[in-house]
């Protein structure tokens, strides 16, 4: 015992180490865990860890939401800049898409047109303030020569007045110095279209005796040696007699909707003037007014628009009041009296059909105070004319409903 006391510390060390070695050896040899000790340790530690985690997450959330808000401001600024860039990019892409669609339409027209054409893009306008000249990105290297026609699927645009190696100058149809031979579609009237420096062009050399209708289309006649025959030029907006000739103003169809891509006619082929108006010409129709979208009122309903409608309604009311059905009487039979007042006739002679609502015409406007049709159910059926003195209508009960029209 004294020995143990003397070596107490070493003894305790050995005992503790031995105990842990036994514990360790038991676990290793048996492959089982001493679950109880672990449960104690985990039970002691995890609640504290849970509290710490809760505090940490709350603190971190608060710090993240409020302390670092200045970062949010910077991020907001950056995102706004990014949104602006994306909007610009989007606009650019939409523009490119529209351009691609236009080019696709041009290519389709190019494929079906008998003339040999070359696609070109408008890259600039003339320097003058009233300049009706544009530059296209195809020049003499691309086969473009002075005097060639420039068109779009909608109509002629102008003609090449100068061809440079990489670009060409095009005089537009609305330039005052522009002129081209045209022919009208319907009456085959020939003339010369020239620009006015405005949105409309004028067709000269048409006699007052010649007929041109508003809306009529003019096509190139092929007489000028520039434009092949059969290309649309525009539709007539205004026609009036003038001196020395008729004044015909055209809306040039080739310049409508902006000018981005055009076709240069490298080798033109004359085509016949189509007999029908252009099928691909877009015509905008106004939507119908709201009241027109509703079903039209029947005879006797609402507002009658013509005298014939009023007369028809009047005859129907007279026939109904006199028990006459139109279209059923034999030839020579007595027709209804059309000279009667419809309101009086309806008041005097109501028929069973009118009383019960059978074959009743739609409700007609009645004079104030006039009894309603069918308010005499006890009256005998028969022609109205045969009841010269109709009995007064019986007093209407308070709960009586007006007859069904």
């Amino acid at each position: 015992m004294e020995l143990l006391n003397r070596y107490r510390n070493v003894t305790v060390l050995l005992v503790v180490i031995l105990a842990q070695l036994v514990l360790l050896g038991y676990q290793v040899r048996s492959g089982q865990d001493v679950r109880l000790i672990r449960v104690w340790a985990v039970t002691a530690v995890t609640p504290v860890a849970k509290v710490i985690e809760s505090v940490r997450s709350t603190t971190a959330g608060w710090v993240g939401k409020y302390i670092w808000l200045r970062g949010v401001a910077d991020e907001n600024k950056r995102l706004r800049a990014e949104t602006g860039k994306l909007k610009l990019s989007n606009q650019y892409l939409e523009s490119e898409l529209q351009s691609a669609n236009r080019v696709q339409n041009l290519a389709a027209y190019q494929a079906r047109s008998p003339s040999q054409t070359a696609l070109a893009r408008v890259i600039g306008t003339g320097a003058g303030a009233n300049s009706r000249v544009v530059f296209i990105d195809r020049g003499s290297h691309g086969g473009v020569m002075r005097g060639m026609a420039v068109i779009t699927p909608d109509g002629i645009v102008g003609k090449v007045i100068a061809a440079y190696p990489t670009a060409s100058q095009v005089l537009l149809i609305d330039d005052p110095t522009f002129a081209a031979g045209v022919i009208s579609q319907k009456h085959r009237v020939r003339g010369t279209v020239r620009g006015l420096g405005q949105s409309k062009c004028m067709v000269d050399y048409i006699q007052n005796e010649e007929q041109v209708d508003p809306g009529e289309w003019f096509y190139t006649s092929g007489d000028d040696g520039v434009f092949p025959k059969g290309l649309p030029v525009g539709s007539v907006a205004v026609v009036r007699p003038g001196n020395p000739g008729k004044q015909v103003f055209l809306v040039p169809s080739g310049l409508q909707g902006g000018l981005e891509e055009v076709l240069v006619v490298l080798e033109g082929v004359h085509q016949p003037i189509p007999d029908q108006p252009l099928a691909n010409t877009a015509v905008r129709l106004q939507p119908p007014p709201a009241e027109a979208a509703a079903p039209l009122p029947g005879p006797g309903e609402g507002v009658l628009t013509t005298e014939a409608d009023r007369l028809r309604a009047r005859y129907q009311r007279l026939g109904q009041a006199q028990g006459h059905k139109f279209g059923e009487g034999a030839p020579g039979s007595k027709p209804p009296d059309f000279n009667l007042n419809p309101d009086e006739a309806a008041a005097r002679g109501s028929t069973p059909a009118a009383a019960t609502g059978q074959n009743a015409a739609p409700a007609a406007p009645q004079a104030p105070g006039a009894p309603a049709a069918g308010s005499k159910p006890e009256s005998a059926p028969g022609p109205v004319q045969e009841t010269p003195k109709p009995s007064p209508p019986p007093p209407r009960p308070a709960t009586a409903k007006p007859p069904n029209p």
Partner: protein
Amino acid sequence: MSDLRDRILIGSARERGAARFRRWGLIAVPLAAILFQVYVRRFSDFVAYLELPLLVTVYFALLRRSQVAGIFIGAGIGLVQDSLSHQPLGMFGLIKTLVGYFAASVGMRFDVDQVAMRFVLALFFFIFHQFFYWVLARALLGQQAVFDMQQTFFAGLLNAAVGIALYYFLDKLKERA
């Protein structure tokens, strides 16, 4: 020479066991060290190099200057650490029992309040701890563990540096008798 010896070695019984730790600290500090090992390690791999339970074991063993107390402190902290690990119970318990015993033995003979002494002890016991863990892992568990001396040394330096700061903080919690 005599002054240096007096400064390093404890010269009187008055100094021995004069420092006492607050009672709640004896539970809270080891628990906090183990929690740190378990919880904070999630957020940083750098923390994996720290062995706070070992540093706390050394501190309390040095503070108590009692070998028996060092044994039980080391065994207790080690077993709790074992319980929260995937190893069989007793691995950390055995090693920290030895650490507690030897740290207390050192604390009985040297003045361990000096920073340099604490630094050296923390470094030494960290290497001792890692080495014995490697030995036990190979001998008792049959694991093919690797002992990287260089990495262990640098990790020991890190732990010693952290230990200095930790011990300074824990000294504030001491109460003088």
